[in-house]
């Protein structure tokens, strides 16, 4: 049985992901925001990966700061993908068509990333951090493989 309430919730969720932009004035603004998120993630990985590879020592404060910056830049994720941000006449975007043609799979991929991100944030020591990091990377890959277009 699907209640009216759950239908309403589902509709809201779909609107949040695909509907007309709530937080962004235009598709281009959404593109800019998600690219800023990806850039912050890239910079964050630049801090985290050397710790995984052993080039930099484990430092909980540094890791936490990096993850916070990544999280903040991407906080609006659910609004990053309005239909009018699929293409742009002024901006280059590698957002793949499958984001809009297969929104369920896209949400699942985004969800997997977010779960891994939350788990990594909750780690308390070096062993835990190193064990949890791979899943974050897999989370990135989950979207990049299916939902990021070729160059």
């Amino acid at each position, binding site marked *: 049985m699907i209640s009216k309430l759950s239908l309403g919730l589902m509709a809201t969720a779909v609107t949040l992901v695909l509907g007309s932009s709530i937080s962004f004035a235009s598709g281009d603004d959404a593109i800019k925001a998600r690219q800023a998120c990806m850039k912050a993630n*890239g910079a964050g*990985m*630049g801090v*985290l*990966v050397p710790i*995984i*590879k052993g080039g930099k020592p484990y430092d909980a404060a540094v890791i936490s700061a990096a993850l916070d910056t990544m999280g903040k830049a991407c906080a609006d994720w659910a609004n990053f993908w309005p239909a009018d941000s699929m293409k742009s006449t002024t901006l280059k975007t*590698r957002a*793949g068509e499958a984001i809009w043609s297969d929104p369920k799979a896209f949400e699942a991929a985004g969800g997997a990333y977010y779960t891994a991100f939350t788990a990594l944030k909750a780690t308390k020591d070096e062993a835990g951090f190193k064990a949890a*990091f*791979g899943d974050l*990377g*897999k989370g*990135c*890959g989950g979207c*990049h*493989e299916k939902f*990021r*277009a*070729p*160059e």
Partner: protein
Amino acid sequence: MKLISKSTIGGLALFAALGLVFFWMASAPHPLNAADIPEHTANIDNGKLLYNIGGCISCHAPGPDVKNVAADIPAGGKPFITPIGILYPPNLTPDRDTGLGYWTEVDFVNAMQKGLGPSDEHLIPAFPYTSYAHMKIGDILDIKAYLASFAAVKNATKPHEVLFQPIVRRGLGLWKWVGFDETKWQPDAAQTASWNRGSYLVNGPGHCSECHTPRTLFMSSDTARMFQGGPHPEGKGKVPSLRGLVERERYKDAADLVLAFQNGEELGYDKMSSGGMGEVRKNIALLPDDDVKAIAEFVSNLK
């Protein structure tokens, strides 16, 4: 007054007939015979390694309608969408009715290195025989032996959805004159053994140049611009250049590239994920360390 005389019509008809004869002769298949296949003791492990670097499974994966078959069994049928139409890569398991069960060694070599099916029909070069042609024949036979070790799966794949397919196929015989270089791979004595191993894996079974090299007007690999990046096979977007990966700071050095191949995004390497490269990378990661290093040595030295 007659503008077109009877003799003109006769001339045109003769010209057209000669053209057809020329087309028919020039597009004829040239298969190998059983006598051309050397004695060979198959090495299944080597076949498996080459199957992995070839990424055979990426195209020959079971299609969505194939039930109860693991995703890593090459039962075929996963649609491959290309600008010329939808292709359904065939079943490579040893099933006698729908797979390679009855294929002889020469059948398999003709497919892999001559681009010819068992009835001598030209194969569509989305199947990269244009690269496999450069391989050692023993390696081809090892792949056949490895494929024969799979359990047979009955799966008759759909016919390709390509317009005017009989004419296109026969026309490929003409295309082979300009687009098909069958020279065997040669080592470069000035380079290390590892570089040469990498060169063989990349240029032969790995068929990297099929996507990473631009194409000429005739849709053949533009060998003057080897590995400078090409059009994406699905029709939209580009496949990046492999030249100057270190100089352009994509990777620090060959060792960095090895880590990227073996770990991908799990170690923060995000440039091998999109456009199908994610699957290619996972196939490369199945290789022994020395072969991954060899590929990295060769690729990171492309200037």
